């Protein structure tokens, strides 16, 4: 894990020096990547809880939307932390709805998730008209601006790292940029999010409760025969799932944005789910996935044309190397495809100077697809994930 991060940083560093796209590893990019990764990671964490208990949750998007609205509505009246709390609760309500439909009534999980998404969107739009009409600084589709949550950082680190970064040395400056992004000017809510990930790991993998919860996702009939209250576990997991998505929504409204806006979530619930799948239904993996998407998203914001253009060089070269490796293992079809895509990426890199803005907007989504296409065959989801379960069905 650490090794692959190090290799990745080295590659990025080389590409940065070769292309002069300094924003590839600048502190600003890393800081933006962190801020963009947090909501995706929180949504993914929601997905992790739910799917580990055996309930597929594509309603995360709707629960996040509820979270953004709750944060916007409570945040401007009673301060940002109340906003986070109410956003969390609203997300949990969305989770409760999903739990009632899927656990108690055995509705297809995807169907219920889609319905929660429709309902979350509709409810927030309706509530906005009622709650924000005539409020100063607000509109029918947005809340007033919210007060910010304080940022923290390791003291005395910012300036030395910034001056190191300015030299643009190979690897050293990149490392300084990454550290500056991660250790200075971090929102307290980001710190909380990191704690939530660690806490989830401890609860799900190191406690009896977590073992019971996960056993419901692997084999609910067996869990039931051992005396586990499967319905209760699933309810707890799905409500927690909604709460995490709600925190993610609150983060979007308070830290990433400046208040609730309609359409703010923009598919992040789905991307979070994809990050969790990419992370093989594990906390560490989902952090890596969220980091990847946050990074590609941040790149397109910071001189996107140039940075994504430089990224093309990296992708092209990696694919060509991969093609050679595949060919050596005599997997010719896969090798040819990799070589063709790699050559296309390189050709595009050489023939253009910047990537048009629309295509940089696409980067996180294309990256999601590529990553899933490359990773999905070695993944293993909880054995009973998404399957209907009724108490006593084992006979």
């Amino acid at each position, binding site marked *: 894990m650490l090794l692959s991060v190090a290799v990745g940083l080295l590659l990025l560093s080389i590409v940065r020096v070769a292309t002069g796209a300094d924003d590839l590893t600048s502190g600003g990019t890393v800081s933006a990547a962190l801020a963009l990764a947090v909501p995706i990671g929180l949504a993914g964490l929601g997905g992790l809880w739910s799917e580990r208990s055996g309930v597929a949750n*594509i309603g995360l998007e709707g629960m996040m939307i509820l979270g953004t609205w709750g944060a916007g509505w409570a945040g401007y009246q009673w301060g940002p932390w109340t906003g986070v709390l109410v956003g969390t609760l609203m997300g949990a309500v969305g989770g409760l*709805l999903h739990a009632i*439909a899927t656990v108690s*009534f*055995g*509705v*297809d999980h*995807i*169907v*219920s998730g*889609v*319905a*929660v998404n*429709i*309902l979350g*969107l*509709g*409810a927030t*739009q*309706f509530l*906005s*008209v*009622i709650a924000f009409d005539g409020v100063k600084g607000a509109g029918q589709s947005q809340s007033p601006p919210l007060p910010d949550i304080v940022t923290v950082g390791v003291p005395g680190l910012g300036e030395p790292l910034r001056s190191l970064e300015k030299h643009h040395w190979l690897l050293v400056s990149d490392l300084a940029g990454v550290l500056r992004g991660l250790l200075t000017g971090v929102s307290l809510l980001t710190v909380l999010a990191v704690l939530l990930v660690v806490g989830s790991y401890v609860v799900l993998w190191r406690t009896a409760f977590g073992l019971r919860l996960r056993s419901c996702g692997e084999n609910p009939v067996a869990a039931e025969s051992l005396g586990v209250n499967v319905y209760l576990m699933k309810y707890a997991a799905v409500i927690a799932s909604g709460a995490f998505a709600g925190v993610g929504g609150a983060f979007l409204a308070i830290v990433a944005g400046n208040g609730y806006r309609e359409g703010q979530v923009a*598919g992040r619930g*789905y991307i979070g*789910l*994809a990050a969790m*799948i990419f992370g093989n239904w594990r906390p560490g993996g989902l952090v890596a996935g969220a980091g990847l998407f946050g990074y590609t998203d941040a790149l397109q914001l910071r001189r996107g044309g140039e940075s994504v253009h430089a990224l093309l060089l990296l992708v092209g070269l990696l694919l060509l190397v991969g093609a050679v490796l595949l060919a050596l293992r005599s997997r010719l079809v896969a090798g040819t495809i990799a070589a063709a895509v790699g050559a296309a990426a390189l050709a595009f890199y050489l023939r253009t100077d910047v990537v*048009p803005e*629309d*295509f940089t*907007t*696409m980067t996180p*989504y*294309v990256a*999601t*697809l590529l990553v*899933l*296409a*490359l990773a*999905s*065959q070695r993944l293993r989801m909880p054995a009973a994930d998404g399957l209907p379960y009724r108490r006593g069905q084992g006979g």
Partner: protein
Amino acid sequence: MRIDPRRVLLAVAAPTIAIVFALLVTALVLTSTGDPVLSTATAVFDYARKPAVEAQILNQGTIYYLSALAVAVGFRMNLFNIGVDGQYRLAAFAAAVVGSSFTLPKPLHILVILLVAMAVGAMWAGIAALLKTSRGVSEVISTIMLNAIATTLVAYLLRRFKVDTPGSNNVATKSIAESGAFPGLGLIPGTSVKVFGFIIIAAVAGAAYAVVLSRTRFGFDLRATGRSRTAAIASGVDVRRMIVTSLLISGAIAGLVGMPQLLGGSTRSYSLDFPAGLGFTGIAIALLGRNNAVGMALAALLFSFLDSSSLILDFNGIAKEIVLIIQGTIVLSVVVIYELVRRYGVAAEQRRVSRQLDGATA
């Protein structure tokens, strides 16, 4: 086919209960915001009886129906084509660009445009199909990503292919020539609003959907794969091919979703304000109509009726977004109630059989 009155009753009961439940929720929301329930309901129904509004409901219903059909083809095979949204927008854009680049005699011109739209829709769905069959990527995630990619792709291409219309801020493609216009029908007396001629194509597509699924080998294979993949494999169905074919068909139908508006609208061009989000409504309608050709038609009309009421709600000073709440509640309650009714049906069937068995042994 033998019609069992009990099963018909159960099939009708579920959506009826769901709609009544959704109306109750709506009444509750209206009461909580202090709006009058009864007079609002009368206003909505009176408004929907105006001829122009009726025509509008039929038009919107046509579009919704096509979208629901596209979703339902996947649903019947346990595939969730959430990408109908991206598929129809990309298809409509491509059809607008290609269709406006030449002229042909009337029926031929329309035919070529429709074929382009279906091909593009199928191609976009085909990406998800290939990712699923070759790499095992869930179509739920991939179609959602493809939706987002389609949005930015269309935005980019629209700027490259736009033509400037003086005095308008709207960015649009070149208009398709008159020979590409799909004639409207004066179905409803008392209004000048024409009903989309495309309603006929939608009806034909619905009939074809019903016949192919219940009367052909392909339809049987498709439903069998949806019910039990292992059983289908055991009986010799090539599941991979079924996934690709059904997603291609779903995408092709999705390609038609934008056509009533593109060929039957006034501008015959793809512009920034081309309707978006129809694919998601299609999912809701397919769920409500239980993937049944007739059921989805009724559901499409219901949703279209609810949409039309937003205008009069606005006029009466009620937040029109309440329509979204009604629609969401209907979908969620209908799936819950279907499940309850199904459980009730199974239990009733078990009781009936056990009674018969008791009678036989006694």
